């Protein structure tokens, strides 16, 4: 029988997670829709559920050891009101659904849900963000990029919870010195799920590319970011970028493998993703 757990503390939550198969529910905005039953009947969850959104231990945004740490229970709107988060992340969160949903949904939940179209993922992956996963037996760190392994699939162990999302402070500091583009492509401004989303960032020093990062959401099973291809563009002068891009573009043509679904066609997704990259490289090549 499906049970509902309401732990009074994080340690109680970890005890429950350690001994039973329970689905953690914070904002519930993905889970309640996924397991919706006929109106008026309880939601039809496949396993027991444990609510964690109320736990005070998961409500924090702090700077610690070189990271901005965002607690697992922090909502998207709480983050939007926090000036310490990277601009790329703020731009993406601002276009997720609408204010009422952002008052419920959590950043950790958006990651754990592991949708290929999860809008927070491209900026978090550009920022090299990581997660602190906790269980009764301790904690471990993992990059967001390694955490999401496929549509709806993550590396979270049965007895673990996402304690926090950690964004390197040095990225946050250098982000504003670089050139940033975040673009969500959807049918309308509010409430539409993404056809695709893109987060691009380049940092230059006296006309030389010091750091260039490009990530694309909803164009493959997981976010596309090709570090090796980025390295081929690093160290170039702005004026050399366009011709180098001609060689590198093929890497992305191979990696961008979208699907057709109710929101968009694969052809549209692929063409738009590559055109957005072309436009970004064009901008990055100008001083």
């Amino acid at each position, binding site marked *: 029988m499906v049970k509902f757990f309401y732990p009074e503390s994080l340690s109680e939550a970890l005890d429950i997670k350690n001994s039973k198969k329970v689905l953690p529910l914070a904002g519930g905005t993905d889970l309640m829709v996924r397991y919706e039953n006929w109106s008026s009947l309880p939601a039809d969850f496949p396993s027991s559920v444990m609510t964690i959104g109320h736990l005070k231990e998961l409500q924090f945004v702090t700077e610690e050891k070189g990271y901005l740490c965002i607690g697992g229970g922090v909502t998207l709107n709480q983050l939007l009101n926090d000036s310490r988060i990277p601009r790329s992340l703020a731009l993406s969160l601002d276009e997720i659904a609408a204010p009422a*949903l952002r008052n419920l949904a959590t950043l950790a939940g958006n990651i754990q849900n592991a949708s290929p179209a999860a809008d927070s993922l491209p900026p978090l992956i550009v920022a090299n963000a990581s997660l602190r996963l906790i269980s009764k037996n301790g904690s471990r760190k993992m990059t967001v990029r390694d955490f999401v392994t496929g549509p709806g699939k993550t590396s979270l162990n049965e007895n673990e919870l996402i304690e926090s999302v950690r964004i390197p402070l040095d990225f946050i500091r250098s982000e504003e010195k670089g050139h940033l583009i975040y673009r969500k492509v959807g049918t309308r401004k509010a409430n539409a799920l993404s056809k695709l989303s893109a987060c691009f960032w380049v940092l230059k020093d006296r006309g030389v590319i010091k750091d260039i990062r490009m990530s694309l959401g909803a164009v493959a099973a997981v976010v596309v970011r090709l570090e090796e291809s980025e390295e081929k563009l690093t160290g170039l002068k702005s004026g050399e970028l366009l011709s180098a891009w001609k060689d590198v573009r093929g890497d992305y043509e191979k990696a961008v493998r979208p699907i057709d679904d109710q929101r968009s066609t694969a052809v549209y997704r692929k063409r738009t993703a590559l055109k957005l990259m072309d436009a970004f490289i064009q901008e990055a090549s100008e001083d």
Partner: protein
Amino acid sequence: MKDGKIRFTLNGRDVVYEDSPLRRLLDVLREDLGETGVKEGCGEGECGACSILLNGKLVNSCMIAMGTIHEKELMTIEGLRETEQGKCIIDAFADAGAVQCGFCIPGMVMAAQSVLQDAPRPSEEEIRKGISGNLCRCTGYDQIVQAVQMASEKGAGLW
């Protein structure tokens, strides 16, 4: 909630709920508590017809499991309309012609209240953003934006 009872306040009065924690707040409001001003549109957080205030913040009640609202404060249109702020918004909607079929309007009024709580003198952009999660099929939004502006002017000092 150790005893399995979910306690919360609804429009200022205490409520104890003992049924399934996995029912949607929307259903409980409408069916158990008679709050039929809360409407079900899409049932998946996209239309805003079921919007209420939870601890003062705008939320979609169709996406909320009863088990998550323990010890929280809820306000629906039935509660808001008894307040000076609610009356002001509702009068403004009527004066601006911002009501046609009325189905989306309870949620829209809740969104308007949320906008004015955050910014008593909101810009047009703030209003449009604040109501962006509420779909309306007949009014056309401009009158609704005007209504929020009128409420902000006439109700100056209320928020």
